[in-house]
């Protein structure tokens, strides 16, 4: 992970969108799901609490983590987000504050998806950049959702990759 996304390595740029030029799409007609509109339900923090919050460690919940990844574009269908394709789901984002660990399980659209590792790396890069560094970020394939699940998970877990 580090060797691909280190600052001096330019061949893979993490910009939140990957475009693949593919003649035949692997999954040309993916199921697109409606997106939940929960912007109106965002908690508003009173001003007096904001001042206090500066002195304490920020608490993290799975909503905030999901916010970071829901709009990432799918490599094969760049007009669609990972949320729309149900590749990332709010229920599969877990924040363990005691052990300072964030776990995101993603679901490739098909079990033979060849860009699954790429999606995993994109998720990991996005989270490592936007989450407090004290959190360990774990990105995995949702159990049973890919033929190469073990190999992909191992690659995503390797700190040096």
């Amino acid at each position, binding site marked *: 992970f*580090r*060797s691909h996304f*280190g*600052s*001096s*390595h330019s061949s893979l740029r993490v910009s939140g969108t990957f475009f693949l030029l593919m003649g035949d799409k692997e999954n040309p007609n993916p199921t697109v799901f409606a997106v939940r509109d929960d912007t109106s339900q965002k908690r508003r923090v009173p001003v007096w609490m904001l001042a206090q919050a500066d002195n304490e460690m920020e608490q993290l919940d799975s909503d905030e983590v999901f916010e970071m990844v829901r709009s990432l574009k799918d490599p094969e269908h760049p007009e669609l987000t990972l949320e729309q394709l149900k590749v990332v789901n709010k229920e599969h984002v877990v924040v363990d504050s005691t*052990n300072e660990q964030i776990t995101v399980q993603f679901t490739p659209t098909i079990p033979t998806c060849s860009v699954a590792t790429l999606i995993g790396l994109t998720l990991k890069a996005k989270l490592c950049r936007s989450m407090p*560094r*004290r959190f*360990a970020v774990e990105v995995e394939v949702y159990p049973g959702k890919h033929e190469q699940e073990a190999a992909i998970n*191992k690659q995503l*877990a*390797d*700190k*040096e990759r």
Partner: protein
Amino acid sequence: KFSSFLSFMDTLEDVSRALLGSDEDDSTVWCIAWHPEGKLIASCGQGVVVRFWSSESGGWRQVGELDANEHSRTIRSLAWRGDGDFLAVGSFDSNASVFRVVRTEKGMQFPKVTRLEGHENEVKGVAWSTSGEFLATCSRDKSIFIYDVCPADDGCEVEYEVSGVVSHNQDVKTVVWHPKEDMLFSGSYDDTIKIWGHSGDDWDCIHTLGGHISTIWSLAISPDGDEFASCSQDRTVKIWSKASTTSQMAVRQPDPFALLRAASAGAGAFSAIRGYLHRQWSRSGQQQSPANSSVWSCVATLQGYHKRPILAVTWLPGLDGCIATASGKAIRVFRRVGEGIERSWCLQMVQEMAHSLDVNHVTWSPSCGDSEAGALLASCGDDGTVKVWRYKSDMWV
């Protein structure tokens, strides 16, 4: 502090006081290495500067800096040669280099550097043999290069010639030499540990040790060389011991799969590798029967103690059966306690927030500690700092 059921107190105290490290962003420190005399530490990481730390003038502080700008990416590992005059570094830019190190009153100087090329991608580890005759580098290209270290005729220059190329099935994370023999241990992403020995010019795999269920990150051999510890992504530490089988005339065969992997490692531009393969094929009809062949086996697994992958393990010289591990932000110290059949490994000490982010490496000072002064442990992490700890125990036998 941690009080065990045997009721003795172990302490791990941060003696470096001010946090040592760089101020830049992306300042992950990946590796530290103690100078053989035990008073100087070299550290490396995402920046291409190697830093040197010492406590000689009271209190730990930086005493030198080496701008390794022939490397364009992270310096992942470093190792001092046995005499402390040479420092090898391995970089993610796929090269390694060896610096001549000279300490003068004016500070540290680096009069000569030799660049070692050939790996196809990131170099992960570098290690000198105890005899000083060999240097090993390992890489994500699945191969290990073993260099002959040849002093040139005038005695000043040192040349490096590839003596062997061997490989694993996957990324090789670490290489460590045996403290007494010219035997190389390697750990890999392929979940195995391999032990390599040589007869004449040829390096062969003597043993492949399975058991871990994920990547091996680090290996630590005891000072007598009869046992070693391995730590893994699978969150366990395994202790391995040698059972000598002198009664059997075991045949040591060159590993046929090693040949295929060496070929597929793709280092086709290297004529030394072609020569090595040629020698292997031509003597495949002969077999070697060494006088005694030792078999390594796993005698203990430390399971359930670590919550995160274990990136480093180090064996304390001077104390029988004491190791430290780096996992997540914590450093743990384990001791082997008890006598005879009752002997077992026991967690002595957990320093939960040793660093504010992941700890990447821990290494005991090579100078044996004692019950008065304790032993020194250096650690480094993603938080950009190097720390030195003093470990003290009532049970210092």
